[in-house]
């Protein structure tokens, strides 16, 4: 049974001011209803004035996705009542969107390159936000800080074949948008997705209200399973709109096709038609993720997997390029395989960590001044300091203060003897041919030396000691 998925992705464009007024978009840490004016509150008589920056952002995306920008596009009103919608209509674009017919390259489930067609992109305003008061209150509160935040809606053709593919598409899209500097994916609610899902030959279901990356895969997986199960049982899928309940990981029926809302779209009479196709030629696109990935492989000689990981997030890629000169291969391994995980574990961003300190750490590793085990310890200590908001100490100082310089193996002879003496059973096991026993003993020595010894060398020394029968 072939799965068919199309997405409508709404992303908040990162502009300093809202789409139709000059209110600041930087409200995340502020009180409700403090970033409002007559325009975004929809006060009687107020008129929208289009934010040029939002249009430029939209055009950048259009160019990056190789789309056709319409010679003349227009804004339209989408009419519906809801308390978070102060004008009783949303200003959006309908039958003449900003741009049409583009592509995004992703990898399919077999790892092959695949083109996902983009139907259209258009600009629209975000509504406000309802805050449901906890404790079964009989009313809800409305916050209009978000009202008028510029959104770009990106609509795909039904080209996606699995929830995993949909997630990869979103990751790629996010990456492109971040490279274009039009989107801040870390912002809460910055990305929202509606998905159309069907099993080939059956009716299509729209799932609304998915507001996180992880949610998309979860919602789609649930919905695909639900539809397949219906079909396996000989039942049919009903064409309807369903809501995704993020907390429970399920979708529930919202309304059927017959009850679909009539939005009574018509041209927004308060705005002029948009003639911006001529601006596209003047837009300089930055290097995009695919090109950067290929350059990383060629320039730094790193693996496809590393290059892909490092170029997914432009800030991460920038970071890598700042530290790569020490040793491109070592840097790639340490950034992609160690640093990323440590950052995620602490909920930190790459920009929270100074690259020069990482350069110093790489240099210590490269020169053999510290072991990899010590390097991880030092890195953790530096990250903990950064996370606590204190200035990041140079790794050399940490190494010096805590005496973590790599020791010569002879230094540890006594420790090796002590460990061997204290673990006769392990020694006996090793002699009986159990390789694991040696690792255990090495681990014990490592612990005693606080990682200052090279584990490979230690393995050799411990084996020698036992073989020589010195204990």
């Amino acid at each position, binding site marked *: 049974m072939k799965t068919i998925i199309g997405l409508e992705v709404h992303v908040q464009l990162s502009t300093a001011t809202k789409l139709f007024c000059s209110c600041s978009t930087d409200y995340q840490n502020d009180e409700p209803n403090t970033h409002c004016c*007559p325009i975004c509150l929809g006060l009687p*008589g107020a008129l929208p004035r289009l934010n040029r920056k939002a249009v430029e952002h939209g055009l950048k995306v259009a160019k990056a996705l190789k789309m056709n920008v319409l010679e003349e596009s227009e804004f339209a009103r989408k*009419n519906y*009542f809801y308390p978070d919608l102060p004008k009783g209509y949303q200003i959006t674009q309908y039958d003449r969107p900003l741009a049409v017919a583009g592509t995004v390259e992703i990898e399919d489930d077999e790892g092959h390159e695949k083109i996902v067609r983009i139907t259209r992109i258009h600009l629209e305003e975000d509504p406000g936000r309802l805050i449901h008061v906890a404790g079964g209150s*009989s*009313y809800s509160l409305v916050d209009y800080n978000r009202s008028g935040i510029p959104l770009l809606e990106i609509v795909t053709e039904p080209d996606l074949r699995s929830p995993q593919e949909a997630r990869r598409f979103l990751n790629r899209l996010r990456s492109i948008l971040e490279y274009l500097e039009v989107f801040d994916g870390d912002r809460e609610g910055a990305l929202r997705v509606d998905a159309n899902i069907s099993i080939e030959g059956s009716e299509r279901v729209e799932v609304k209200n998915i507001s996180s990356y992880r949610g998309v895969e979860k919602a789609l997986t649930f919905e695909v399973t639900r539809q397949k199960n219906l079909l396996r049982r000989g039942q049919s899928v009903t064409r309807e709109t369903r809501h995704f309940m993020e907390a429970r990981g399920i979708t529930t029926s919202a309304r059927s096709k017959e009850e679909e809302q009539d939005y*009574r779209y*018509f041209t927004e009479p*308060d705005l002029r038609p948009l003639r911006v196709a001529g601006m596209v030629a003047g837009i300089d696109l930055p290097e995009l993720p695919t090109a950067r990935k290929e350059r990383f492989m060629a320039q730094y000689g790193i693996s496809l997997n590393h290059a892909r990981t490092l170029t997914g997030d432009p800030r991460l890629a920038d970071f890598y390029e700042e530290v790569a000169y020490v040793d491109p291969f070592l840097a790639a391994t340490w950034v992609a395989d160690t640093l990323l995980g440590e950052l995620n574990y602490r909920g930190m961003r790459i920009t929270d960590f100074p690259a020069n300190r990482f350069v110093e750490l790489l240099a210590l590793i490269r020169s053999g001044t510290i072991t990899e085990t010590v390097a991880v310890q030092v890195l953790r200590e530096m990250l903990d300091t950064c996370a606590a908001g204190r200035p990041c100490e140079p790794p050399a100082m940490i190494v010096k203060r805590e005496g973590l310089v790599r020791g010569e193996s002879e230094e540890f002879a006594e420790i090796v003897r002590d460990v061997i003496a204290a673990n006769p059973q392990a020694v006996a096991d090793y002699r009986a041919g159990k390789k694991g026993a040696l690792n255990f003993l090495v681990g014990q020595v490592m612990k005693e030396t606080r990682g200052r010894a090279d584990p490979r060398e230690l393995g050799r020394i411990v084996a020698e000691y036992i073989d020589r029968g010195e204990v």
Partner: protein
Amino acid sequence: MAGTLEFSPDDRYNAFITTCKEAPFSDGVLAGTPIAVKDNISTAGIETTCGSRILEGYVPPYDAHVVELLRREGAAIVGKTNMDEFGMGTTTETSAFGPTTNPIDTSRVPGGSSGGSAAAVAAGLVPMALGTDTGGSIRCPAAFCGIVGFKPTYGRVSRYGLIAYANSLEQIGPMARNVEEISRLLSVIARYDPRDSTMIDRPYKHQPSVDIEGLRIGVPEEYFGEGVDARVAETVRDAISVLEEMGARTVQVSIPGMRYALAAYYVICTGEASSNLARFDGLRYGPAVDTRKPWHEAYREIRQEKFGAEVRRRIMLGTFALSAGYAGRYYAKAQIARRNIKEDFERAFRSADIIAGPTMPTVAFRLGEKTDPLSLYLSDILTVPANLAGIPAISVPCAGSVDGLPVGLQLMGRRFEDERVIDAAYAYEQGVGR
């Protein structure tokens, strides 16, 4: 010369919804001039109701662009004038605050929807006022009350702060006793405002001139045909001949698209209105909704209770005209008809510089005379074409009258030739020695 103007008019015509007993003013070309503002134009600190219960108690936190300009030039805003609810009417009888009467004959309506502004000027309570014109709402009451009213070219005056009825059609404009005052007020309010995206930066700086030598006046047969009172037509023809005597010459023109003008107008204005008026839900301003009820029930109740019958009718008509399955048949067709009328005017303006005809097909109705909405809608036939085409149009009182009631001469010009329209009206006024 800044100060405060005391204003306590004998408002026997119910021209005002709100009056300001003490109106502050500053220096400027209008220093100390009392000006009345139609109650759908936002005034910071002064209640603005649109003649509707649903906005009762609403005090805007900001001034409309035109009000800012008035204040900057020293005008004293002395009050907010009565109007048909949200501008939806031709008589000022749909106001939630009672009808305004016509100062010429108090048994008659002042016209609408800017009836309060027209009555305030006609009664001499203020020398000038602001009105708004969506389908004739400045020119109709000007004609019925015997004053001058001007609808500028669409895009010449900022709509920022005008509480929208039908955005693509309406303009704010001056109302006064003579053309010179119209011109003076227009020069203050027609200044660029980037907040209105439909505006074009063409400030009005013009001194009216009586020189109309060689002016070609187009006289469309449609403006003198069926439905137009013969005596009104005759009075207007006399007025046009005055202009001829002053050096103008008349040419026959035709606006065949007029056949569909009213239908197109009512589809477009109700469609836009149904959307514009959606924001009045009792949540943010005006009388508050009952928050204990589910929001959709609370919305329905307050909108049912606070909107008047004519407003509800137009919201329903507009909602229908925009509905899926009907929008193609109504809204899209109306846009075609609108384009045709625009083109008709462009064609007519190739052989004429000004188009002249009556403002209204009849003189002022008696209060309560027109109860059938359709017959009221029909009386807008001569004014709506200018709104559909976006062209400037003025109503100036004819020298003659019908049964002692004023008749308006309507003069229309090409887009952004507001100055020429003002000159023609000024010439007529001077020619008949008013």
